[in-house]
């Protein structure tokens, strides 16, 4: 009896271990496929790489704890990204600088020759927008449709549309301004 129940328990343990192993594997695969993407999204919202790293880690720790549920979502990426976004907002909020940061003028750069430069320039332009607008635009740039953005950011659909329009308009102005400054500098 004792052996039998021990054996049963052993089988159960085995089963649990196997399932846990599978879960671990699927989390590794998820990380392999999405880490850069999630971080890229966070970096387009927040200039502080330390906060980005923290938000990413916090979201993944929750995902690790509840991977069994999360991995069954239609889009686990959306959930993790959403959670990372909340974590980031909370981090930004707790570190809210009551003294106020002076608005830093972006360094105008010339025409980007490489993708990396383009990305840096984009982030500089984005840094002039409010976080919620940046997030909506960052998701749109990552290929999400309006509904998907609304889901991930916890916004109304009409809000997503107005954010995208506003953010684009502002970015366009900023890009033209930066272009003019760069042109003016290259002339001198």
């Amino acid at each position, binding site marked *: 009896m004792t052996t039998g129940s021990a054996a049963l328990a052993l089988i159960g343990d085995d089963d649990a271990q196997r399932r846990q192993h599978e879960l671990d594997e699927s989390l590794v695969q998820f*990380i*392999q496929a999405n880490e850069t993407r999630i971080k*890229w999204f966070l970096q387009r919202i927040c200039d502080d790489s330390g906060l980005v790293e923290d938000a990413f*880690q916090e979201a993944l720790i929750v995902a690790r704890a509840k991977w069994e549920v999360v991995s069954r979502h239609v889009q686990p990426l*959306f959930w993790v990204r959403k959670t990372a976004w909340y974590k980031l907002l909370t981090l930004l909020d707790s570190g809210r600088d009551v003294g106020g940061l002076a608005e830093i003028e972006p360094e105008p750069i010339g025409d980007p020759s490489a993708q990396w430069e383009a990305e840096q320039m*984009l982030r500089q332009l984005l840094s002039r927008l409010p976080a919620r607008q940046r997030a909506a635009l960052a998701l749109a740039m990552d290929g999400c449709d309006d509904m998907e953005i609304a889901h991930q950011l916890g916004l109304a*659909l009409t*809000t997503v549309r107005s954010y995208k329009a506003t953010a684009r308009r502002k970015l*366009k102005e900023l890009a033209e301004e930066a272009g003019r400054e760069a042109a003016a500098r290259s002339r001198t």
Partner: protein
Amino acid sequence: MNLDDLLTLTAQRVPTQLDEARARRTARMIDDEYVRRLAAGIDITSDVDLRDPAEMDERQRIIRSAELLKLGTISWHLNRSEIDWSSEMSRILGHAPGVIQPSLSRLISMIHRKDRALVRRQIQAAWRGPAETEVVFRIVKPDRATGYVHCYIEVITDDDGQPTGIIATGRDVTSVEKARQERDRRTLRGGTVQPDLTEFDPITGLLTRQRFADQVGRALRTGTGTLLVVSAPPYIRRSSDANSGRDDRLSAAAAEVLRSVAGPSDPCGVVGRHEFGVLLQYTTVDTARPKADEILDRLRATRFLAASARLDAFGGLVHYDYRIPTESIELLFDAETAWRQAKRQDVPLHVLRESPSTADRREAARASIRAAVEDNRFVLFAQPLRDLELNQITRHEMLLRVLDDVGRAVPPTTFLELAEHVDEILTVDKWVINHALRLIGQGSQTSHYQINISGRSLADPLLLEHISHAIDRHAVDPERLTLEITETAAIGNLTVARRFADGVRALGCQVALDDFGTGSTPLSFLTQLPVDLVKIDGSFIQDLPDSKPSQAVVEGLVQTCHRLGILTAAEYVQDEATLDLLRHYGVDFAQGFYVGEPELIRTERPPAQSIELPINPINPAGSEPTM
């Protein structure tokens, strides 16, 4: 840079997959941290929502999202008559959750009266969009405490895209808002306060007399040293040779000599007309002497400008010591006495080795003032004041001018300062009253005249009687007379001042406060003394069109006076823009070069046609600025 190009370029980047080893490392790190927190009993999942966002409806999703971020929500649905708010929002509004029933009328009553229209506008704008709007407004809590709330206002739509409701997501931003206000206030204040008090004379670039005296005063309290005062008037034979433009150039050139000989750490200032001071700190008369000699030599040797003008330079050097209490005005007086001594002896420099006792100095100063009065070394000028409502000259201020060694009329600032300091101002004031009233009595008395009296003189119980007699003697209409109390010296005794002002008004005259806003007259005098007119100090008017701080002061002061039934006048008006502003603020009278320069009153001539007092311009040297 084109935004679309930029977006295309950045979109081309497909997020690279990590290699497996790196992903495993990340997973391991996450796992370690997870295990650590589990062991430490740290809560991991309570503040997240495990539901798939795609499974919630829009309203739920927004409310849930707000909850996770610890934000409050207020929601309204088209088909429901009442609004709802979350527990967190209830707390933000100052009520324990569940205590009061959410209702629109209650919400409106909690919003600060002045912010209700703004909130309504932002909600309407969101609905019209439909688009998200933001608003910051004040709420008044049950205990009357006020807080600031920031809300995102979002419009909920149905599957057909038709708006069906509104959700506001809010947070308490009182501390953030207060910090922002404080930051704004500091920024504003930084722009409205003078960066420093250093004031330079515009012609010479040296310190003004006042600021130089400050420097002297500071040196007097902290150490020993010497003060050199140099008189360097242009060498002229007749007063008609004078030319103010050339005078200015000479002053500037003399200042240049001073600056080049004096070190960068020796403060130099203008102490009078063609009179300059150099403060030589930590020197004795013996160590300072070479520098003093060099300054005088170079001033005397230089032939300035083409007009073959030569400077007639005399210097007075005095020693000071913090152990012997002296005031800056006294030390300046000593140095001025010393250069006059040099001039009498016709030597370049007189060194005063032994400073006189306070009593001796005072006696000497008083004697020199009494002598000036006895010798009639004064003249009176009149400067017009324009009534800004009628837009015509209706008043004149009688201005005292002191005649200098060569008979030129110079502004009396230094002289009056000394006279007040040694309590000999009453003699001067009486001279002014006698002569001004005589001149007025000789004219046709169609203007209104303003005469200056020192605040110090009010203490004399006989002054009122003196004025009364002079009015009678010269048959002056008292209603055409305003006595301006100058602010330079504090009105010592309020009861005495009050009695004087009441007495003056009983005679039928009016009372004005001169140079209001810079001297020692407190605001309370406006209610404690029966003042009819306040003359706003020229320093607020000088650069009025360019100075927001001055505009704020003048506008506020005019409003205050207006509500107290006090007339206002502005001095130093130099252009039309200033005049326009003053008119806009409701200032009653304007005075200054732009309105009219002070002109010598000549009594020997018959009255001029339009102006009541016979006023004629004299040569330019006499047309001193009153500023």
